[in-house]
């Protein structure tokens, strides 16, 4: 028994000594701030910053290749903590969240062909731009919700994604993956939104979708703050000029203008009443 105990004990002792010496002399020097920053970051490894995961972003921050505000998921709180570690003062900007700028679901928007291919918006877009007759509309196959690392997107009853604004961190992954650019990041505080993405002329829009912006210019004419302009046949609201008076929403014949409350809930005016709608 003794010889085996001594042998094993000897091997153990030798290995322990070897490892101990190696850890002392061959240690890789890392900046302790990388670990500090990684601990502050949300840890979802969403990739929204453009680096490989949170530790990659932390590394880039130390090397000066990234801005402390680059983590949109962590928002201003994380940016400030990171700034403290790096000794940079952070000025807070408006928080942005993702919004789906199309409501033309299966009930309102026409399809140009029946699609039987791979259930993915990007794959569908290869075939003549996708099955939806509207060239700009949401294809509704859920590529965005599969891309969302925060589980903030779900598919609505009309096959239009619904974004949970409480969970949305504004990382912008969904906006980047959408082949139709239907999802865009907008300031959370923007109260009125034109939920249509179509740059087609009014006649074409009417032909393919019941609830698209037909560029009739009524909102542009009625807005007392002159906050709305037409950009390539689509109404655009300037969030800085908008006084949130709500006149445009009441006047829009196609009901494409919506208002949101502080929680980001979207409200739609239907037959004179204002009804809450998740969107």
């Amino acid at each position, binding site marked *: 028994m003794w010889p085996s105990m001594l042998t094993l004990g000897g091997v153990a002792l030798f290995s322990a000594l070897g490892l101990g010496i190696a850890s002392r002399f061959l240690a890789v020097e890392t900046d302790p701030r990388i670990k500090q920053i990684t601990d502050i970051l949300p840890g979802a490894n969403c990739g929204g910053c453009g680096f490989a995961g949170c530790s990659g972003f932390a590394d880039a921050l130390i090397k000066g290749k990234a801005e402390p505000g680059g983590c949109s998921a962590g928002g201003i709180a994380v940016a400030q903590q990171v700034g403290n570690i790096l000794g940079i003062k952070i000025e807070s900007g408006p928080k942005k969240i993702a919004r789906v700028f199309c409501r033309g679901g299966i009930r309102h928007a026409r399809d140009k062909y029946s699609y*039987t291919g791979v259930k*993915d918006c*990007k*794959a569908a877009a*290869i075939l*003549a731009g996708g099955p939806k007759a509207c060239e700009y509309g949401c294809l509704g196959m859920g590529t965005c919700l599969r891309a969302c690392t925060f589980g903030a997107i779900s598919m609505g009853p009309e096959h239009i994604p619904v974004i949970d604004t409480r969970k949305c961190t504004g990382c912008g992954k969904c906006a980047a993956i959408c082949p139709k650019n239907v999802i865009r990041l907008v300031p959370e505080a923007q109260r009125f939104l034109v939920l249509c993405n179509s740059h087609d002329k009014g006649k074409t829009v009417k032909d393919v979708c019941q609830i698209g912006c037909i560029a009739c210019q009524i909102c542009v004419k009625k807005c007392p703050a002159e906050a709305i302009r037409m950009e390539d046949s689509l109404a655009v609201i300037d969030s800085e000029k908008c006084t949130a008076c709500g006149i445009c929403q009441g006047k829009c014949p196609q009901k494409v203008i919506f208002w949101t409350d502080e929680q980001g809930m979207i409200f739609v005016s239907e037959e004179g009443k204002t009804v809450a709608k998740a969107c």
Partner: protein
Amino acid sequence: MIKLKTFPGGVHPPDRKSLSVHKQIEPAVIPNVIVCPMSQHIGAPCQPRVKEGDKVKAGQLIGQADSFVSAPVHAPISGTIKAVCLAPHPIGKPVMAVTIESDGLDAWDDAIQEDLYYSRLEPKDILNRVRNAGIVGLGGAAFPTAVKLSPPKGKRIDTVILNGVECEPYLTADHRIMLEEPEKIIAGLRLIMKVLNVDRAFIGIESNKPDAIESMSKVAKGESGIYVQGLKLKYPQGAEKQLIKAILGREVPPPPCLPLDVGVVVQNAGTCLAVYEAVRDNKPLVERVVTVTGSAINDPKNLRVRLGTSFSDLIAQCGNTNGSVGKVIMGGPMMGIAQHRLDVPVIKGTSGILVLNRKEAAKQESRACIRCGQCIRACPMNLLPNLLGIYCEKGRWEDAEKLHIFDCMECGSCSYICPASRQMVHLIKLGKQEILSIQKKREAKS
């Protein structure tokens, strides 16, 4: 009986050619309005050289090709230019197109005349005529022929292969021209051999066209250096690389290598005919033979069609559809492009218009891969379609790239054979697109 040759891999879809194979080629009715897209080929789109209100004659240049890999577009009929604007295109997205309203005269441009001394032309003059005639590969891919006929210096071409395989099910256009105009095809082949300075050519024909083998052999007999080679019936026998492998046993290395890297140029039978007409008659490519067929077509036909004629006009000339239309495809069922509207024009690459009924077009739900490996045996490029499909489905683009996704020619053998109805080709198309955009980003960064 000569031994039939073939390549490894491939599938055996039912060929369904009997619907239109016995129908002689008929000229299609010249329509009143023709739409000529400025992009009917692989390469840079043409620049329109006419404007609204101009009068044109048939065969007159309307779209000029400014870059090397491109092919000019000519007016298929005489008449007045009605519009130069975006118009629907069978490939998908609208492209710039010239709309011509016919004057009913079908008057041809004065330059289009028979040149009795065409056989004395120098190789570079032949090449010029081919380029100016806007000829592209008529098998479907529509690659500019003049580019194929000008190999870079240092590349020696020793063999020309005439592709008379037409392995896509349903299509019979090439088969019919090989029966009806074998002399012209072989004269065209001779011209191509002259340009490339090659004295050996093979004519590859699948064994399901014994009459075409016979008619081509009869003409080829009197010609030195031109041999007809029978090939086993298998899809995709007519793909360039598979045809070279079958006839010469040579393997074309992966992209960016081309058949000319192994000393071969492959030309489709229809292209040879177009080359002959372009060189002898100075006639640009303004018409082609199109097979209008499918179980939903009442009277399938092979039609000689002016480019720019709409699909709906041609379907009307074939006795219309019999009600239960499930899918309209430009080209064959394996590699063709499904259409969602019928006002699209016939372009240079339109080898057929296939109208399937509802039952045939119905697709089974795609299920999980069962690892049976049938797609691996079927893949003529020796790829792993099972893994490529899974990687593209899961967004593992780098892994797909490592498995040589860009070698895939999208022949559809894997999707055809898959017992789980997986849509491998669609996934691979998506993968190629994604990987290209990733590569672009990578380049921009470095």
